[in-house]
């Protein structure tokens, strides 16, 4: 499909690899996907690239049971709208999660995964997905016996 052709993949690659968006330096608003114009400041706006932290909360989610061919192997896959801590909303899959723990408001962080492969001999598209946040690993450093 032309929409997944190597040049089309490449044009958006950095944004997908690093979760890049835009920030208006005039008003401070952040945007995803990247924008060329700040809708509030218009011509007075100054748009800069921003790398989001990847932290966010699940705004809504679904478990897909019926998917097009290129995503078929991942079903049942969790797709969610995630509201980033900087504000913008992004859509991607939630991985490494038990479907039973899914809920609106769940804290997630971005990770780097394969989005799909174009046939066995085609290019591989990578990008951000999300996984549940675990902030409790600090305890391991306090336990002398690890």
């Amino acid at each position, binding site marked *: *499909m032309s*929409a*997944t052709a190597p040049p089309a993949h490449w044009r*958006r690659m950095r944004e*997908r690899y690093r979760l890049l968006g835009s920030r208006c330096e005039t008003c401070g608003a952040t945007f*995803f*996907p990247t924008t060329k114009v700040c809708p509030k400041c218009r011509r007075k706006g100054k748009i800069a690239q921003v790398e989001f932290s990847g932290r966010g909360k699940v*705004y*809504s*989610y*679904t*478990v*897909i*049971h*019926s*998917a*097009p*061919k290129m*995503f*078929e192997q*991942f079903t049942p*896959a969790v*797709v*969610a*709208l995630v509201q980033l801590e900087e504000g*913008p*909303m*992004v*859509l*991607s*899959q939630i991985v490494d999660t038990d479907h039973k723990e899914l809920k*609106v408001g769940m804290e997630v962080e971005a990770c780097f995964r394969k*989005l*799909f492969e174009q046939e066995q001999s085609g290019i591989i*598209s990578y*990008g951000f*997905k999300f996984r549940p946040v675990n902030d409790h690993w600090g305890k391991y450093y306090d336990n002398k016996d690890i």
Partner: protein
Amino acid sequence: MLKKREVAVISAVTTKCGEHWDKGIKDLAWEAGVKAVEEAGISGKDIEYLVVGNMSGGMFVGQEHIGALVADFLGLNPIPSLRVEAACASGGVAFYQGYLAVASGLYDVVAVGGVEKMTDVEPEQATSVLAGAMDFEWEAYFGATFPALYALIATRYMHEYRLKPETLAKIAVKNHYYGSLNPLAHFRNKITVEEALTSPLVADPLRKYDCSPISDGAAVAILAPLDIAKKYTDTPIVVEASAIASDTLSLLKRRDLCTLDATVNAANKAFQLAHIEREDVDLIEVHDCFSIAELLAIEDLGFCKKGEAQNLVEEGQTYIGGRIPVNTDGGLKAAGHPVGATGVKQIAELVKQLRGEADKGRQVDGAEVGLAHNIGGTGATAVVTILSRRGA
């Protein structure tokens, strides 16, 4: 600015929707076109302009140039013909274009068509084609499907307004009930809440019976200025208003995930232009591509407050005899959803109802005013058209 003329529908027809293995895109367009011309009592030569709604002839059947194709097969050459595309709102947008052409005074008799041949591709392929109506780079690329996007709305709606899956099931049950009474419907079987709730999950919480089918079908409407329309029919159906509004292509930048702002804006504009109040509307044909979409439409069109459409459904108020009958032909769910044709098919249903010609058991008694609501994508395009039998 040209002075606006009053526009009326002389005839509006639809083919049966479903899996038409024996019919291609040309056959479907021909069948609807001939039927519309016959019903209008006009000659093909009277048609001055043709607008056809079609979402993706190229991806579904490898055929583009649909405007010329339909003009050719209906023997309309050399009149101007064109195709318009707004995903699943292609039909509604085609109707709007035909309406503008007549209202502006540029043309008198205009044919508006909608056609889609969807079953020549495998269902997974159809899912991919339909995904072209969302933001491919930031939604489909990350694994979203259309059922998934509406499921995201449904999950959020359930979170905010305590909606239960049973209520969504009741929407499907109603639409299948009216489909059973409609000989042109894709599905003619009645279903139970139990069946809907135990049907396979497509995108949680949406199940098979929450989703409209992949259908083949076509619909055509013939428009003319009201005074000319009266020459052809005793019951011209007046186009009181037709309005379109746009919103963000993707769900990422919506003001509110549970409101389709395009519907709100198109509806407000249409009611304002028509000088008609919501309580004067006798029935509505809404874009229930998914059960949750019917719920959103009832609210966003202004028939109740956000979060309250579930009460109307639970109380049976969306059946004929209730406060606001919804989708008396079975809707997209049961009557079928040949995407490019759907917007025109809705007009055909309203015309039938307003003329009192609906099938037994599904006629809204004394219907004077009807509203059609057609959506493209997840609400990036909304078309709202209000019709009345004022001209009869």
